[in-house]
């Protein structure tokens, strides 16, 4: 500390003039909020894997008519209950052999199938191609999910915004309704609706929608309530911006994270409900396939033909896991405080 280092004299020169622009430079480059969210999301490996998986599943469902190798409802009774087989490749579990009375038998030969015929995931008790049924079933389940989510957005979001923004008596009244609707167990409503309406896609969506919007409305209301008190919203109001303009310019963008995250939890919920209803026999009617009906059919034959249950079970679980994990990833990306650093 005491010794003074030797420094060339010319280094002791003032470098700044009085108005140095450099001084106002900020160290880190700034990113917009959405850029930051995207960056955080794509750095999350789990979320990226889930996103990819879901994208593939969605694409396959969209292009089901092109991709599915067979008509999902075409029955061919002679080909019933054939195990999975992948071409002429002799992969155990995918070679068309089946345990019958203790030894493995080529089920395709027994059924008298043409030499080049094969079903990747086998066939069901009516000889329908399981792979095609699963592709179409997934498609139907996803349609249910998308429709349920849309209703969620169309009812839940405006309801929440109005309730939170108006406040006062309107809010109290609207919240009473929410309170009552949410204290009715939604499963019961869904089942009652399914009994009254004819089983089918529309009924399922209506049944899920009747109770599903409540959570969304609650979250949006709470968030709107908070946002309303924010200075920039107050400023916009003071400046006389119209309510609609404030809602579209300030509220919706700030609510987007809440809405997106909640949507990621609505989707698996809707898929679950569809599967559940179809499983207990009041969902999608035969002969159409959904993941729920496939599981229900598969369960009946599970002891002897486990492959009929495994495939839809795995697909359903993958969709549920991936949406849940992606929802987590999105939450972390939108709200970095909820995650780690």
């Amino acid at each position: 500390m005491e010794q003074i280092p030797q420094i060339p004299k010319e280094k002791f020169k003032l470098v700044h003039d009085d108005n140095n622009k450099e001084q106002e430079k900020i160290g880190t480059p700034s990113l917009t909020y959405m850029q930051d969210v995207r960056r955080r999301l794509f750095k999350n490996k789990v979320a990226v894997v889930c996103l990819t998986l879901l994208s593939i599943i969605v694409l396959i469902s969209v292009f089901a008519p092109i991709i599915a190798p067979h008509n999902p409802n075409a029955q061919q009774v002679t080909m019933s209950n054939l195990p999975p087989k992948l071409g002429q490749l002799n992969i155990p579990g995918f070679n068309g052999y089946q345990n019958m009375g203790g030894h493995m038998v080529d089920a395709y030969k027994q059924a008298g199938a043409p030499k080049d015929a094969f079903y990747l995931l086998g066939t069901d008790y009516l000889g329908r191609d399981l792979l095609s049924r699963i592709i179409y079933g997934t498609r139907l389940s996803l349609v249910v999910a998308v429709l349920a989510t849309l209703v969620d957005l169309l009812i839940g979001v405006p309801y929440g915004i109005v309730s939170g923004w108006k406040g006062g008596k309107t809010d109290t009244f609207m919240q009473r309704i929410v309170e009552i609707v949410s204290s009715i167990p939604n499963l019961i409503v869904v089942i009652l609706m399914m009994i009254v309406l004819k089983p089918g896609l529309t009924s399922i969506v209506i049944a899920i929608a009747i109770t599903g919007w409540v959570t969304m409305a609650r979250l949006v209301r709470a968030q709107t309530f908070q946002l309303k008190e924010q200075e920039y919203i107050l400023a916009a109001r003071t400046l006389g911006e119209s309510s609609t303009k404030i809602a579209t310019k300030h509220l919706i963008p700030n609510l987007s994270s809440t809405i997106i995250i909640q949507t990621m939890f609505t989707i698996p919920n809707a898929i679950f409900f569809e599967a559940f209803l179809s499983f207990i026999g009041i969902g999608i009617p035969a002969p159409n396939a959904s993941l729920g009906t496939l599981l229900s059919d598969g369960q009946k034959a599970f002891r002897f033909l486990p492959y009929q249950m495994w495939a839809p079970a795995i697909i359903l679980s993958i969709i549920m896991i991936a949406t849940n994990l992606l929802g987590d990833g999105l939450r972390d990306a939108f709200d970095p405080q909820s995650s780690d650093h």
Partner: protein
Amino acid sequence: MEKILEVKDLHVDFDTYNGTVHAIRGVDFHLNAGETLAIVGESGSGKSVTVRAVLQLLASNAKISKGEVLYHGDDLLQKSDQDMDKIRGNKISMIFQDPMTSLDPTMTIGKQVAEPLLIHNNVSQKDALQRAEEVLRLVGIPNPKARMNDYPHQFSGGQRQRIVIAIAIVDYPEILIADEPTTALDVTVQAQIIDLLKELQQKIGTSIIFITHDLGVVAGIADRVAVMYAGRFVEYGTVNEVFYNPQHPYTWGLLDSMPTLDTSESARLNSIPGTPPNLLNPPKGDAFAPRNKYALEIDEEEQPPFFKVSKTHYAATWLLHPDAPKVTPPAGILKRFEKFQKLGGNAK
């Protein structure tokens, strides 16, 4: 005077999403028995991290990469977590910034105050609660006997800070670390808390490390002051030396941005332009150089060492090098120099 705590060449890094942040980059200081040392600096300068490193209460992504923390000559950084538990709350304790969130909302305050006693001393629950009640009275909680069974939310902010202080002093610590204890409080309550700390220091003879960004508070409580910037100390000395004979341009800036009685109503307060450097990639030279209108070329190349101003006063600026050009500090600082001479010092 006995040095009870000595921190040597402390470095703390944080692993973050964007890379390693070098939050503390070589800090040296000591604390004498019975004195109050104030550490001053703006948000993010590393004040809190420095004292948390002393108690090893850092976040899980922090790492003390280098340095020593000598407590009576014993390096605390070499101690196990179990051994540190015996020191925390017993020998060295801490007061936190926000009294609204520092107390466990689900535990009665009597139990919270008594807790350190039960951890460190072999006392019965009854005796500990008895003592907690005395300490609550000492810190100025009215009717402590009745309020022992109340929960934190039943107290005001100022009272809660008194409770936090009671927890910190209940076991008569040798060192009390106060991390911005008045920042979250109203100005009138601030003064009361400062008075309380001074009074307690007299009564129990503890040494205090007082962290603040508010220079006004420092004058009232500290014996010595250290000014911190971007993870390093830039100047330290006695209160009078730092306040009236500041040497580092950053200290000049800080003092100049503080309103004084002489500041006329129409005058604008001075501010320091720019923002602190990003400690992901700390600058090679003096971290303050980009914001410093007195910066020298050498500042951008090499970190200035501490130059001795007096036996107790050191500053890390190349302006103190014999080869440096003479610069004229801002007018407000020149006035301070005059005052320093009146106080009998020898201003530069």
